[in-house]
Structure formats: structure tokens, C-alpha cells
């Protein structure tokens, strides 16, 4: 019997919980147009996990990467939720992400 799978499952649950928090925070302070950055970060984590020899560290990086990729797809919906009044709306101007001209040309992904 091994508890390692359950530990990874619980880590995933904690990371998803953390994902909800950072999605709300990033959208509130920076805006949904920053969505490519967590997406790229998640993909980088997953790529890095391929080169980590230890399967445990690789698993943790992979889970974190998967959560960041999902989080990037939540930013657009979170912006709409705030506009609808379901979450606190930040009326202050938000900083433009680097590469905003290209980002605006791509439809933000959502599940």
C-alpha cells in the first residue's frame, strides 16, 4: 500500500484552492488580459517537469503547471463575474501586460 498517490491528490486540491485565490487577485489588480502569462508559466512548469529526474518533484511541478494552465483560462470569466457584480469590481486603471497588442488579437481561452 502506498500513500504517495493520495498525497499528490491532496496537493492538487490545495493547488486548485490556491488557483481560485490567485485568479481573483490577478484579475482584480492586473486584469484578465494578463492571461498568457500564467499559461506560459504553467507550460514552462510542465516542460521543466520532464527534465527533473526525481519523479516526486516532477509530479509536483506537473500539478502546479496544470493548475496554472487552468487558471489562465479562468481569468476572462472572472473579469465577467466582477463586471456582473458577483465579485468585487476594481474600477482603478489596470496595468497593460507586455505584448498587449498581440494579446488583444487572440480570444482569451475559457473552459
Amino acid at each position, binding site marked *: 500500500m502506498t500513500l504517495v*498517490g493520495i498525497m499528490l*491528490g491532496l496537493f492538487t486540491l490545495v493547488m486548485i484552492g490556491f488557483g481560485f485565490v490567485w485568479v481573483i487577485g490577478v484579475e482584480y489588480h492586473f486584469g484578465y488580459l494578463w492571461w498568457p502569462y500564467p499559461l506560459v508559466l504553467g507550460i514552462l512548469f*510542465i516542460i*521543466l517537469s520532464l527534465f527533473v529526474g526525481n519523479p516526486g518533484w516532477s509530479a509536483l511541478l506537473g500539478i502546479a503547471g496544470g493548475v496554472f494552465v487552468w487558471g489562465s483560462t479562468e481569468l476572462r470569466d472572472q473579469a465577467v463575474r466582477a463586471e456582473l457584480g458577483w465579485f468585487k469590481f476594481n474600477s482603478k486603471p489596470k496595468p497593460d501586460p507586455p505584448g498587449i497588442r498581440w494579446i488583444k488579437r487572440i480570444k482569451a481561452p475559457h473552459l
Partner: protein
Amino acid sequence: MFAELQFAGFWMAAATFVGIWSGHVGVRWLEAHSPNVLPPALILFAIGLALNIYSLFAPTFVLAGVTSIYGITVIWDGVEMFRQQRRVQHGHSPANPNNPRHAAYLKAGTATTTELLDRDPQGVPVSETDLEAYQKTPLKNKAEVNVS
């Protein structure tokens, strides 16, 4: 070259993303088509629990991780069935007029058949008047297609 790579993380990432995605889509569909959310929620809890019990005895590290990760997301989907029901009741998620439970929410006036998230952010809060008008807009969105 590929033999030297460590694929454990890749499979965990896939289980995490697929678990979240399938839950996202599956819970909405299941809640919209179930006359009572309790039986499907109990089935999801049972499937999630079974996957986690299997992970305890899984023959490999990857299989143990993937089954537990997916199992935990399925258990969470069971919880989400009740949260989704509340979203529909409050008009935060579209109601299915063909589901008697949802029809009752629509009759009570708190629910809507419009997918309110199916719009691009405008950068300004939606006014009460705009929201009301938007909720009454004839349905031409994916939510309608999914639930009818």
C-alpha cells in the same frame, strides 16, 4: 532521448487539467439534466472514493498519482453539483427549462436561461438595467444548445 525524460509530471499535469475540465463541463451538464442532484452527487463521491482507494494499491507511482488526482477532482465535482444548483437558482448559470427542478426556479423568477458568462469583458460594471435586458435577450448561445 525520450527515454531520459521524466514523464511523471506530464501525466500529473494532464490528470489535473483533464480532471478540472471534465468537472467543469460535466457538472454543468449533469446538474442541468438531473431532476434531483443528490443521486449523481453520491455516484460522483463513490467514483472518486473508489479511484482513491485504487491509488493506494496502484502498481506504479504514475498510476497512483493520476488516479488519486482524478479521484479527488471527481469527489469535488460531487460537491460542485450542489454549488451549481445554487448558481442556477441565483441566475448565475443558465437554467434548463426542460428540467422540472430548473423550471420551478424559472417560475420563481430568480433563474435565467441566459449564459451570462458568454460575453467578453467590457471593463465596466454591468448596470442593473443592462443585466435585466441581457437576461431577456433571445437565446442564441451555446448554453441554450447544451441544455435543450
